[in-house]
Structures are given as C-alpha cells and as structure tokens.
C-alpha cells in the first residue's frame, strides 16, 4: 500500500521534476554568464502562468500554443530589463544585482496585480488522462514533461551547434579572452539574459499545465526558492546541471512528502520544504560545483 503510493508519487515527481528542471535552466544560464542571481526568478514564472491563463480563458487558445507566445514575451522582457538595468550592473557588487532583480520581480508582481487583480485563478484544460496502475497521469502533465525535455534539448543544440551559442560559451569561459577574439561580449550578455528570462517565462506555461490552479501575482516566491535548491544541486552555473537537478528535486520532494506523511504529529509539507533547504546547505558546503560535476 505504502509502496504503491510511493511509486505513484515518484512517477509524478519525475514528471514534475522535468518541468522544475526546465524552470531552473534560465536561472542557471543567467548566473553562469552574468554571475547574477535572479532573485526575481519566480515573478517571471508567474508572468508565464498569466500568459497561459489569459490566452486560454480569454481567447480559448491551447496552452501548448502559449509556449512560443510566452517565450517571445520573456525574451522581450529580458531585453528591456537588460538594457535598462542589468547592463549597468554587470560589474556592480552582489548587493546591487540582488536588490535590482528582486525589485524587478516586485515590479512585475504589482503590474500583474494591477491588471488582473490578486485573487487565485485557474483554468480547466480537459484532454483526458492515462491510468498507470499506481497513479493517474493527465495528458496535460505528460505534454508539459515532454515539452520540458524538448526545450532542454533545443537549448543544448543551440549552445553547441550555433555561432551565437559558442559566443556565449566563450564569454562564460573567459570574457576578456572572448572580447580579444572579437566576440561581442555585451551582445552575448544581453542575449543570455533575455534567453534566460525567455526560458523562465516559458516554464511558467509548462508549470501551469502541471498545476493549472493557484495562479496569482505572488505565486512566484515559492518557485524562486525551489529554483535555488535545484540550481545548487546542478552546480548553479550549468543549465543542464539544473535540468538534472530538477529531476532529482522532483523525486526527493514527492518521495519525502510520502514518507513524512507517515509520521504522526508533524506537518509533512513543511518538513519537505525543510529537507530541501538542508540539502541546499549540505551541497553548498560539500560540493558547491553541483552533484553532477566531476571537479
């Protein structure tokens, strides 16, 4: 009975983990290239969720089609915030970049609140479900998982097979050296930041496909914290590390929740969150380069 429940939850955890991983790739990309922690990360996920919600409820557009729309919106926001703010803070101390990205997050939250109000919303996209025996998986969740994997693969191809991707990688390795070799370092920064934001907003679409309720302007805070844990699992500066970190995190989250629920007299949800932060601290102490790295 417990075993069945556990395996069912682990399958759900793996599916959610892939989405978590995709939702953290933007954070890791931005940190890897610009050395900036985007503390407003969750707010961009929230923007993606509202894009999906608005397209679905107002125009009846399929959430899958919201993916490219969200990506374009995210890229646009990324370029705007890069050229107005981040560009001037590349060499600034952490204090400035952390506070700036947090303020950008607040700005987005308040703008969305102004337009849509602060109540909890959701949408109902009924596309059927499959029964796996131990658990029931709606197709919407499956699509979100597949979408995450495809996006992660596309990012990998972009990084390794295109000229712009190589330029960004050269900036990560050595920005001065890249500049000497004629790489447009400023352009690479702008592109990476916008791409990171684009990926994050897109992940908001996929996350609402998994959890289509509870959409409100302040939903991002929890995702920001989860993204930190996942990014640290993957080594903070590697987008692929983040993707696998997401898978691990999804499994740990759902697995430990099932087990904590067996202990009487505790709140399993809070203990699951507690465990994730213990993992965060342990990894930062023992292996800050991430679980996957060989260094």
């Amino acid at each position, binding site marked *: 009975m417990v075993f069945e429940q556990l395996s069912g939850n682990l399958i759900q955890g793996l599916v959610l983990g892939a989405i978590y991983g995709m939702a953290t790739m933007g954070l890791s990309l931005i940190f890897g290239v610009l050395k900036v922690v985007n503390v407003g990360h969750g707010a961009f996920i929230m923007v993606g969720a509202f894009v999906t919600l608005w397209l679905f409820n107002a125009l009846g557009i399929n959430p899958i089609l919201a993916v490219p729309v969200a990506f374009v919106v995210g890229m646009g926001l990324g370029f705007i915030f890069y050229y107005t703010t981040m560009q*001037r803070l590349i060499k600034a101390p952490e*204090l400035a970049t952390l506070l700036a990205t947090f303020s950008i997050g607040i*700005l987005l939250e308040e703008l969305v609140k102004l337009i849509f109000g602060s109540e909890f919303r959701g949408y109902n996209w009924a596309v059927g479900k499959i029964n796996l025996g131990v658990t029931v998986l709606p197709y919407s969740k499956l699509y979100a998982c597949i979408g995450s994997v495809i996006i992660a693969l596309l990012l990998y191809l972009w990084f390794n097979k295109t000229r712009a991707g190589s330029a960004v990688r050269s900036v990560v390795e050595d920005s001065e050296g890249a500049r000497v070799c004629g790489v447009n370092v400023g352009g690479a920064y702008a592109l990476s930041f916008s791409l990171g934001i684009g990926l994050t907003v897109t992940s908001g679409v996929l996350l609402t496909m998994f959890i289509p309720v509870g959409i409100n302007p302040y939903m991002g805070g929890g995702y920001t914290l989860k993204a930190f844990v996942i990014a640290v699992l993957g080594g903070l500066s590697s987008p692929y590390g983040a993707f696998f970190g997401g898978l691990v995190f999804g499994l740990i989250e759902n697995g430990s929740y099932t087990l904590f629920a067996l202990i009487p007299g505790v*709140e399993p949800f*809070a203990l699951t969150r507690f465990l994730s*932060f213990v993992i*965060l601290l342990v990894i930062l102490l023992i292996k800050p380069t991430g679980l996957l790295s060989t260094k």
Partner: protein
Amino acid sequence: MKKEITKYYPLIPVFAAYLVLFLIGKNISGMWQLVAMLLFYCAMGQAFNIFLGMTGYVDFGYVAFMGVGTYGMALAITNLAHIEGLGVGVIIIGFVMALLMSTLLSMAVGAVALRLRGAYFAIATIGVNEGFRFLIEGARIWNGSEGLIFTAQLNQILGRESASALMTFWADIMVLIIAALAAFVTLYYMRSKIGYALTALREDEDAAKVMGINVTKYKIIAFITSACFAGLVGATSWALKTPYVFPPEVFEIHYTIEAIIIVLLGGAGTLLGPVAGGLIYGISKYYLAIFMPGFQLLIFAPIIIIIIVLFPEGVVGMLKNRLKDSGLSRFII
C-alpha cells in the same frame, strides 16, 4: 584626550536625529505611530549595516535573527508568566533569551555560510531562513505554525495598564535605545582594528588574507554583533509591541529586503546611512500608504532600481564625498 572626544563626533548627527524624532513623536499628537515605525526601520538598518555595510556580504536570511529574537522574548513570557514575583524580570530574561538565541543561530549559520562568498553566501542564508521556518512549522516546535500569542501573559505580569503602556510607548523607547547602541557599536568598530580589517576584507578578501588579517575572525565578530542587535529589535519591535509570533510573519523575506533597501539608500558602510535610509524609506512608505493605498510597491520598485543604477553610494555616501574637505566632514562618516 581631545582626540578621544573628536573620535565620537560622528555620533552627534545620529543622536540628534533620534532626539528630534523623539520630540516630534512626544509633542505632536498623532505622530507617535509614525515615529515608532521610523525608529524600527532605523534600528533594523543600523543592526544590518554592521554586517552588510562593513563586510559587503549580502545576508538574505537576515530576518531569521529578528525571528529568533522574537521567539526568545515570546518563550520567556509564555513560560515564566505564572511565576509570582518575577515581574519586569521576565522581560529582562526575555532580552537575555533573545540575545542568546540570536547568538547561537548566528554562530551556527556563520560556521556554515561564512565559508561561502558572494552569490553562494546569499543563497545559503536564504536557505537557512526558510529552512528554520519550515523546521518550526513542520516539526511543530514552539507550537508550530499556530504560533504563540501571549497578550494575556503580558497583562498578567505587568497589569493591564502597564502592559498597554509598554506596547504603545516604552517598547518604542527601547527600540530607540537599541538603535543608539547599535550606532555606538558601529562607530566603535569603525574606529578600531575590527573596522580596518573589515574594510580591507570588503575591498579585497584575498589580499586582506595575504596581508595576515584573520578575515574569518572579523567576519564572525561583525556577523554575531549584527545578529544580536537584530534579535533585540525583534524582541522589542515585534514581541513586545505586538504580543504574538507566527513563523510565516517573523521569517518573512520582505523584512530582509527592507533592511537592504534602507542600508543601500542611506549608504552602505556609513554610520549615518541607516538613519537617513530608515527615515527616507519609512516616511515615504507611510505617506504612500495613506495617499496611494495599494500602489506603494508599484511606485517603490522602479525607484529602487533607479537608485541602484544611478546612486549606488547612497545619500550619506554622496554627502560624504561632497563634504570631503570641509569642516563638516568629521561629523559625517
């Protein structure tokens, strides 16, 4: 001897600001609420500045120390209220508890997080704050997510009238004293070996290490001092002013952000900065809430971004640069 006194001149504008605040609150009716809020922001900024301003490390989980300070006072009052004859002693024990708990937590966090730098340090400290909160809620420590409410116990200890005087007036006076004390300690550190070591470490940690400065020692001193003042602010501004404590409220990350904004606005690492920052932030927040309710954050966020980009050295930092060679320069640091 004369040199000894001039050393403390920079405290004059700080204490003058607090005196003016006190007089305004005391003499103009209806102003005390605003003054109390400003004192809270100034005290929080000043406590935070000791670590953030002097070392340049961004502690994103700073509010955790205010949280455990609040719990220290709350636990003392809830557990000792039934003992006859302790009276005000309970409050004093509460302060000792607050100091003890914030010292212990800061030592634990310091041992782990202070090995890390930059962004890694910031993420680790967020982790500690959130982890601690979810441990309290998850394992139902100190009544878990239901929190502690101790208005009745406070009334029992002090009597209804004194308790309400404490909540509405004397707690704010204590915050004022804590803020003044924090200013004094900040200046003492600045003018001693600790300050020079921390300045060296803020500018270039590796170089400071090579020069033979025990950077870890000084970082931990600043960290624990800052945490202790945070604990005291929590114990007064939160536990004594509003006699209840709920984990989501006292570990709310927005207070950390407010502290960072105040320090940055006034000028990180300056003595007068947190006071200037606290006053500007508190007054604008108070009046925005009155004249444009619901829109404060929408207006604040872009202003903060503009300040970070255009005036990163803060109000006092700019003032300091402008007054460099004038006679006033010895008052403003």
